[in-house]
């Protein structure tokens, strides 16, 4: 199970340390790249240039930001709970790192192959909400408190559809081992069989990442950054490191589970660079979509957000799991099973879209235009000209 990362035998501890070092350095570089990328992409969406000053085309912007954040004073409010306040960033930060363990980048190129990889990732990822609530509670700030409660409510609500959608995929793939799931998609990626779980996964991922339109815990215009409102300097940057790392990991997961990861369309025979490139391209596409959504959509309100999770996504993901189970239990011939799975899931997706349309209603007709105002009384009578 423990594959050799470097192609030769080394001590287990040294191996672990090397892998850990690899994660940390990779994570830092990736997060810096993501921040730079996000700023550039969003700038283009807004007809701006984005960072240009630091280094060629602003490439060193993230480095400059990091230096600034490290150099900044680490302020703690006098009335904050010192332990809870100071420890909160770690509770957000560490679980994200732990998620990296199971993510497959390429064939035999992962930290650890876990039989229940999906479960592990989900279990670990939900720990970081503790950190959010700690940050909100420890700050002794009402905005932070409000944001933390929103974050907790949202994370719990969207954790369930996320789990159910991944379970549905796991059923189809016949495994919870991420590597096996990817390998099973050599011919056709899972998104074809399971478009509805992909949609649920994408939406729940946005919610888990607190990204627009689900960014109510940090909504700048409402709770002014939510749980982070009192943080500064290095601690604040840890929250953001965690946020972008989570973005990266969830995009990788989405690429691996739904888009065929490194396996589709090239297959296992192609070399490591190709597989890495495939993973990167797919994850990059998901990340680009997230940026695109972020730059376009307004924020939902808390009740709409809750209703969408509990009344739409969760029931429909249960139905998806149930339908998958029925199809798989009765074991129809392979091609019929495939068609059934895809059809049911596609129908579910259409249903979700219909529910969304229905809940919002039709656009209101254009405002009333009156060329002559309604009241016909001439105004001249009221005025006594001198």
């Amino acid at each position, binding site marked *: 199970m423990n594959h050799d990362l470097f192609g030769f035998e080394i001590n287990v501890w040294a191996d672990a340390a090397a892998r850990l070092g690899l994660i940390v350095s990779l994570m830092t570089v990736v997060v810096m790249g993501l921040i730079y990328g996000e700023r550039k992409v969003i700038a283009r969406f807004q*007809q701006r240039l984005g960072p240009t000053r630091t280094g060629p085309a602003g490439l060193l912007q993230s480095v400059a930001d990091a230096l600034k954040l490290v150099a900044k004073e680490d302020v703690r409010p006098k009335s904050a709970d010192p332990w809870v306040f100071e420890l909160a960033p770690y509770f957000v930060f560490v679980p994200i790192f732990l998620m990296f363990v199971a993510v497959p980048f390429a064939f035999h190129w992962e930290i650890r192959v876990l039989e229940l990889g999906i479960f592990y990732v989900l279990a670990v990822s939900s720990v970081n909400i503790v950190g959010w609530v700690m940050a909100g509670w420890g700050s002794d700030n009402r905005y932070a408190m409000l944001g933390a409660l929103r974050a907790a409510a949202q994370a719990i609500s969207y954790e369930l559809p996320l789990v159910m959608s991944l379970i549905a995929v796991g059923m189809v793939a016949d495994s919870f081992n991420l590597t096996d799931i990817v390998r099973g998609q050599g011919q056709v990626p899972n998104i074809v069989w399971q478009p509805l779980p992909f949609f649920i996964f994408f939406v729940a991922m946005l919610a888990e990442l607190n990204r627009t339109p689900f960014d109510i815990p940090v909504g700048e215009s409402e709770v002014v950054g939510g749980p982070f409102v009192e943080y500064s300097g290095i601690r604040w940057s840890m929250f953001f490191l965690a946020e972008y790392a989570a973005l990266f990991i969830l995009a990788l997961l989405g690429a691996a589970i739904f888009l065929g990861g490194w396996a589709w369309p090239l297959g296992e025979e192609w070399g490591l660079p190709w597989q890495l490139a495939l993973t990167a391209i797919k994850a990059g596409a998901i990340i680009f979509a997230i940026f695109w959504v972020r730059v376009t959509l307004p924020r939902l309100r808390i009740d709409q957000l809750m209703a969408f999770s509990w009344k739409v996504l969760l029931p429909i993901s249960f139905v998806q799991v149930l339908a998958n189970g029925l199809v798989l239990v009765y074991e129809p011939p392979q091609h019929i099973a495939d068609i059934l799975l895809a059809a049911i899931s596609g129908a579910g997706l259409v249903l979700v879209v219909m529910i969304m349309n229905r809940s919002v209603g039709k656009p209101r007709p254009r405002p009333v235009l009156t060329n002559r105002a309604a009241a016909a009384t001439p105004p001249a009578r009221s005025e006594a000209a001198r």
Partner: protein
Amino acid sequence: MRGLLKSMGVTLSVFARKPVTRQYPETHRPLPERDRAFPLLLWDENLDEPFCTGCHACERACPVECMTVLMKDNPAHRSQGGTSTRRKIIDKFWIDYGRCMRCNICVEVCNFDAIGMNNTWQGHEQSVYDRADLIQDLPQLLAEHKAGDVKPWIAP
């Protein structure tokens, strides 16, 4: 869902457009001729002295009282053996750029076209570390037009 897709389409179409950002300190937008930065005094090249006679018209008209004017007898006047036609001339002049609200009234009330609004970028970029440095005295106010850097626009 249609509306969401339409919005996404709008942002995507903007993605393809050319950015409108100007890289400000390196590339300045060309300023229109009428641009008003801060008032400065004009230099009469023919007589080699300021146009300003220190008549206090602008000082009295200034809504924020940012100007201080002192006049004196012109030593270069004909009666003193000089060439100038100005009997009185400006002695000392201060304008507090920090208080000036750039309303152009001083230019309008001036009978001698002796004061004008700077219409260059140097006129706008006046940041200093101390407010007192924004108080300009006569040589400073005259310097830019004297050197020919500025051609203020004065309404006909």
